[in-house]
């Protein structure tokens, strides 16, 4: 039943993408592949299921329970169609797109069932089997009749797990299975996977950029960088005593570890900030979309030069609050006051020097048809500044001046986010709103951007409203934190107070999920 990878490598159009990798995974064991985007971990996984993109080719051998997989063949080869599913299944990252939106969840599980059986299953038997599979992932039978959009992200990922396991594979490849989920869902899904894995004696390859996921839930780990394995060994040993400098860098860049090392503003400084005259005051801000209330009676205060964090899950209203403050949404009730001046709700009521926003997705927040220089020159022009200042703006965010000639598509995610920050700072705003601005980035890039924001605050004295679903990230940068849940502020105060003595039940849950050692499952081997 053992899974053997021997000398598995991936060749791409520009040469070798992944150097030969060998590994052995016992039944019921988990191998973690960690590394940043571009490290080759996803390509490795795709080569094992025969889903490499066009132009890529795998060599080497993969044996699952004594049976060799046709890794050298193209993915649409008949041999792959027989092997895929029966011996190997793939669980994808994003439960919001990996399920077909137009089919009921039960049908999607049934497809895998029928494909594995090789024939159609009678209706009644099919229903019973689907319900059984749903029960395995702790979902009620009614989910079978639901469409994916009717379910939450966590439930969808459970459906995806049920579908991936419906063919009873011997090897499951989970590609960043929880990256798209909220902190509290993440732990549940990972624990569920672990339980099923032990019950079924299933081998798992877990791919992640997140050390917190790997810690305590995997047996062995391969650290990959630039298509090469730089370090390997038992998970606990590698994390406790990393040998390769890259592994050490990864561990240090992990927000949980970094926050523990205590690079943070002191309690006295935070108190000083709170006493200073407020830059922005929100009072009783309320907003509903149709019948759904997304913000109810939210109060928020931001002092000049302060970094205020807002934490909450998706759907907690934190982004809507930011958009109301920025004037991109129109609040139904409440007051938003900037430097003593009440701001009218809705678009067109803000001036560029009042506030700017940095969005989550660096891939769509820059105009793809404009050069970086043109983007920055336009933002400078708004404030009456000359475009000759473009190189200075680039330098301020740590980019070389030559970048002015490039287009957004030529930049990495982190570089684009730096450009977005430079654009936001060009009109010299008093408040910078970062709406999940680092969530789409790798941990080490995340750390760089957070350091940049902290430096800009110190140099420019700008106030920052920093919104994130990740408490560990907020903790690294914010002076005060506001916890939102279901459209309400449930707790707020200086960062360390809220995190060390959370008063509200929900905050405790978030803290527990973020400080992952508390969320390690009972059978964890860390």
């Amino acid at each position, binding site marked *: 039943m053992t899974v053997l990878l021997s000398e598995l490598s991936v060749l791409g159009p520009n*040469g070798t993408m992944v150097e030969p990798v060998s590994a052995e995974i016992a039944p019921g064991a988990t191998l973690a592949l960690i590394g940043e*985007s571009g490290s080759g971990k996803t390509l490795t996984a795709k080569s094992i299921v025969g889903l490499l*993109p066009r132009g890529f080719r795998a060599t080497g051998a993969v044996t699952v329970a004594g049976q060799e997989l046709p890794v050298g063949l193209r993915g649409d080869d008949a041999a792959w169609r027989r092997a895929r599913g029966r011996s190997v299944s793939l669980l*994808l990252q994003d439960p919001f797109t990996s399920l077909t939106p137009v089919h009921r969840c039960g049908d999607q599980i049934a497809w895998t069932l029928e494909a594995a059986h090789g024939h159609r299953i009678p209706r009644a038997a099919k229903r019973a089997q689907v319900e059984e599979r749903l029960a395995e992932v702790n979902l009620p039978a009614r989910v079978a009749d639901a469409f994916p959009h009717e379910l939450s992200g966590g439930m969808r990922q459970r459906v995806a797990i049920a579908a991936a396991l419906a063919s009873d594979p011997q090897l499951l490849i989970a590609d960043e299975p929880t990256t798209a989920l909220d902190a509290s869902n993440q732990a549940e899904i990972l624990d569920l996977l672990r339980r099923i894995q032990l019950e079924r004696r299933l081998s798992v390859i877990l791919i992640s950029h997140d050390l917190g996921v790997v810690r305590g839930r995997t047996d062995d780990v391969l650290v990959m960088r630039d298509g090469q394995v730089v370090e390997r060994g038992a998970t606990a040993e590698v994390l406790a005593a990393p040998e390769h400098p890259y592994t050490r860098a990864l561990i240090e860049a992990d927000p949980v570890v970094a926050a523990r090392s205590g690079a943070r503003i002191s309690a006295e400084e935070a108190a000083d900030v709170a006493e200073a005259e407020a830059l922005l005051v929100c009072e009783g801000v309320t907003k509903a979309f149709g019948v759904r209330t997304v913000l109810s009676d939210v109060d928020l205060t931001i002092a000049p030069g302060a970094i205020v964090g807002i934490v909450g899950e998706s759907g907690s209203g934190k982004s809507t609050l930011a958009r109301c403050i920025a004037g991109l949404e129109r609040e139904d009730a409440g007051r938003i006051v900037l430097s003593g001046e009440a701001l009218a709700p809705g678009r067109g009521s803000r001036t560029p020097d009042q506030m700017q*926003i940095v*969005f*989550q997705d660096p891939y769509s927040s820059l*105009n793809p048809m404009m050069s970086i220089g043109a983007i920055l020159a336009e933002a400078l022009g708004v404030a009456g500044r000359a475009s000759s200042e473009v190189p200075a703006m680039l330098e301020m965010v740590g980019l070389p001046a030559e970048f002015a000639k490039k287009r957004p*598509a030529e930049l*990495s995610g982190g570089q684009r986010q730096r450009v977005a920050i430079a654009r936001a700072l060009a009109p010299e705003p008093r408040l910078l709103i970062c709406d999940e601005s680092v969530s789409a980035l790798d941990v080490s890039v995340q750390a760089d951007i957070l350091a940049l924001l902290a430096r800009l605050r110190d140099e420019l004295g700008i106030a920052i409203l920093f919104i994130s679903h990740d408490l560990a990230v907020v903790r690294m940068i914010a002076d005060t934190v506001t916890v939102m849940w279901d459209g309400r502020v449930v707790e707020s105060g200086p960062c360390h107070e809220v995190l060390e003595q959370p008063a509200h039940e929900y905050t405790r849950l978030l803290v527990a999920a973020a400080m992952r050692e508390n969320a390690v499952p009972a059978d964890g081997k860390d």
Partner: protein
Amino acid sequence: MSDIRVIGPAPVRRRRRRLPIGVGVALGVLALAVLAAVFGKLIFPDAMHQDILAATLPPGSEGHPLGTDELGRDVLQMAVAGAASSLVGPVIVAVGSMLLGVVMGTLAGYEKGWLDTLISRWTDLLLAVPVLLAAIVVSGVMGGGYWVTVALLIVLFSPSDIRIVRAGVLEQSARPYIEAAQMLSLSRWRVMFRHILPNVTSLVVTNLMLNVAFALVAFSSLSFLGVGVAPGTADWGRQLTDGRAIMFQNPAAVFVPALLIVVVAVCVNLVGDWIGQRLSQVGEEVR
């Protein structure tokens, strides 16, 4: 997966992209057609000269490689001289409806509200009008003529441009870079025409080329029906009508203009597809 596109030192823009053979041939054909449209009347000033003594000569006759029609006009000379009338109208129609589409579609997609409703209902109304029938009726009432047809076709072709531009603008205006532009308090015109429009260019240009092909066929059909160009003008559609009667004596009189219409329309489509593809890759990720 987002992971894949960043792997390795990805070549961000591949500059050497070879021209597909089909597109190369199509470009060659279009170049010839344009040359004929520009210089055709200079090369054959007497293309419409009637010579009743040389009427209905079959292809291969001396001095008339493709034969002559009922009135003794040389088929080859007419085909070359007719390029101008057959091509200029469709190009003007396509460009005109594109301009109309860009302005109205962008306004509808970006401003939304009552303006969108007004423009969208207007396009619905126009789409319900059968193009050829309307052209026949209007030409009948207004007395016909080339430029009346051009103006009419611009209006009747514009709904597809308006709809396509509107959809593209709607899609783009939900993107964060547009909200970032709004946060800079840029004027709506700047947002619409500097930020959004370049991102829908590939749609606009592809549709422009499609419309050239459609308009070419529509123009020829109208001329064939006798409501397009005036009799006696060198024009492929007109030539088709005139040649119909002698189809068996000189097949070239019918098939040459018919083939020209089909070939040019196909070439325009091929080139249009290719340009659209190229444009849509500008500024995109390398996958």
